[in-house]
């Protein structure tokens, strides 16, 4: 396992006695050269998990391991310098994640400049090389972010993460801000980089069809907890947890005949607040198969197949 977490928690203090349980005890493993897709509604804690995992948020409790080595709970500057060589992130919004006052050369080259193993001119050469690799032009490096379209900016964000040649990348909704035709370009680019560099990825998204297509395994989160995890096709085509079932049923397909045949019952209600959550299953209030036990006890993680786990009382 390249990356592993054990009961990782991230709570935010949001006022007196108010604790927001963004990530509430997540245990996952990601093997070398694997893509784990992470899906869930907004507010389910998937981005926070990605950021906590690579030290952008200090963890509240629990453990995270990289190559078998425990990562510090709170990264120091030295830790950041050490781990940023191997752990990188691609952000969702290509508009707010690039500093508008820096040129592309500064943005893409900043990481390797800080690492300090390259001279100025080497940095420039590498930036030029990477801009070409991500499908931009070497002479784009003197420009500023506002001169690029959304898809081009996302490529700049990818070049910035990849130039360090990391082993593990957290892709936080890398395509949700992009047009369909450009999404395919970025996905294919990530796929090429994955095979050429032997990358391992945590691919966070809410587009279920895309996550199924991209990832080897899929993990579903609800209100900070893991509800189901297994091989992508298994989770997508034979979802077991009531939430996963409803989530996948809500996902429309680009196929009118299929859509007409679908007996359509959208999931009721909305995701509840993750502030000061108590015991019991988090999904209980929206769940069609809720029982009394669900309100009292937090369901354990149950293994239902060799590589498929579900957190639901129906299976325990």
């Amino acid at each position, binding site marked *: 396992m390249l990356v592993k977490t054990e009961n990782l928690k991230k709570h935010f203090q949001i006022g007196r006695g108010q604790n927001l349980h963004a990530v509430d005890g997540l245990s996952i493993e990601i093997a070398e050269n694997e893509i784990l897709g992470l899906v869930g509604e907004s507010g389910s804690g998937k981005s926070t998990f990605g950021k906590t995992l690579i030290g952008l948020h200090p963890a509240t409790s629990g453990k995270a391991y990289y190559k078998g080595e425990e990562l510090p709970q709170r990264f120091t500057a030295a830790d950041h310098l050490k781990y940023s060589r191997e752990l990188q992130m691609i952000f969702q919004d290509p508009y707010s994640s690039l500093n508008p006052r820096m040129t592309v050369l500064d943005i893409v080259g900043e990481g390797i400049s800080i690492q300090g193993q390259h001279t100025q001119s080497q940095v420039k050469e590498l930036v030029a090389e990477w801009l070409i690799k991500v499908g931009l032009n070497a002479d784009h490096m003197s420009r500023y972010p506002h001169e690029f379209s959304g898809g081009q900016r996302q490529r700049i964000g990818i070049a910035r993460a990849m130039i360090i040649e990391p082993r593990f990348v957290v892709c936080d909704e890398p395509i949700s801000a992009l047009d*369909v035709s450009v999404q395919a370009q970025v996905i294919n680019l990530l796929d090429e980089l994955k095979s050429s560099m032997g990358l391992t990825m945590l691919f966070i998204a809410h587009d279920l069809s895309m996550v*199924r297509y991209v990832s080897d395994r899929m993990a579903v989160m609800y209100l900070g907890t893991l509800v189901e995890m297994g091989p992508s096709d298994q989770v997508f085509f034979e979802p077991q947890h009531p939430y996963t079932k409803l989530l996948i049923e809500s996902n429309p397909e*680009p196929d*009118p005949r299929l859509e007409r045949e679908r007996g359509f019952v959208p999931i009721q209600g909305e995701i509840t607040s993750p502030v000061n959550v108590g015991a019991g299953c988090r999904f209980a209030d929206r769940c069609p198969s809720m029982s009394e036990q669900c309100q009292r006890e937090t369901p354990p993680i149950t293994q239902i197949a060799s590589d498929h786990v579900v957190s639901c009382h129906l299976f325990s």
Partner: protein
Amino acid sequence: MTDSILEVTDLSVEFATYGGRVKAVRGVSFDVKAGETLAIVGESGCGKSVTVQSLMGIIPMPPGEITGGVAKLNGKDILGLTSKEANEFRGVKIGMIFQDPMTSLNPTMTIGDQIAETLMVHRGMGKKDAFDRAIELLEKTKISEASKRAKQYPFEFSGGMLQRAMIAQSLACNPSLLIADEPTTALDVTIQAQILELMSELQRTENMSIILITHDLAVVARMADRVAVMYAGQIVESGTVDEIFYESAHPYTLGLRAAMPSNKTTREKKLTPILGSPPDLFHPPTGCGYFARCPYAMKSCEKMLPPECLLTAESNHQSRCWLQHPDAPRVQELFQPARTQEEAPDAG
């Protein structure tokens, strides 16, 4: 056609900017029939939002300018109205909901007051009656505890609830046409499913027509009766939802479909992106707008704009592509490989 409630013919819209004039919409024609849903699909910048905004008369002029075309709602011209005339139909005959409900509603007024305002302005209702009606409308859009919710401000609502409130507001005057501009783009799939379901239900009970603007083909498949695909300010293909999905007749439509993974697509099969980027609408191409990105482009496509070719005599399936021109060599074979490649796994 007699049963069309909205007929748009040859609409063109330009914007004056420092860089020159942007020709955002270049001769768009379509109609909407009573009770149906027309989806207008396209990428950012293709002019789909500008098209409907110019119908609503909410394009800032200047810099915007409607440079040509006619739009008739129930036979009555709606372009070039005075602002007083426009106020009388906007929100009354046509309701509109937007992508981002947070910024489209007034943050300093309660939800109930905002809906009531519409009724007071357009229906001349008193404050009390209007507020009561607002609560009814919120109930109609399935907002629980509507009377309590009506006294709350937008920041106290979630995104999905706000979109419901906006739908309630747009329904206030029983419009015959609802324009929904990317209504679910900012929402989660679960909430999207709820809102889409609500829209289809209201469409049935209120007998409304809907123009749905979206870039999401899955939402189109779920909602639309007919579809118009826009590219570079023009409608490149239009037809029923089945014609568009199963008999795509424009290379751009095919390209869009190949760029998305379907349920059957496995990792071994790469997605086929559409290479390049849309043309510069400061200087739109004289020929086909899709020429530079089209895998089937011919020399004539560069210089000459293809007409809207009817595919069969019986249907209304049109494609703005030279390959579909009656004089063109047989093209069925040309489109077939791309189509079977995409759909082959469906067979088994």
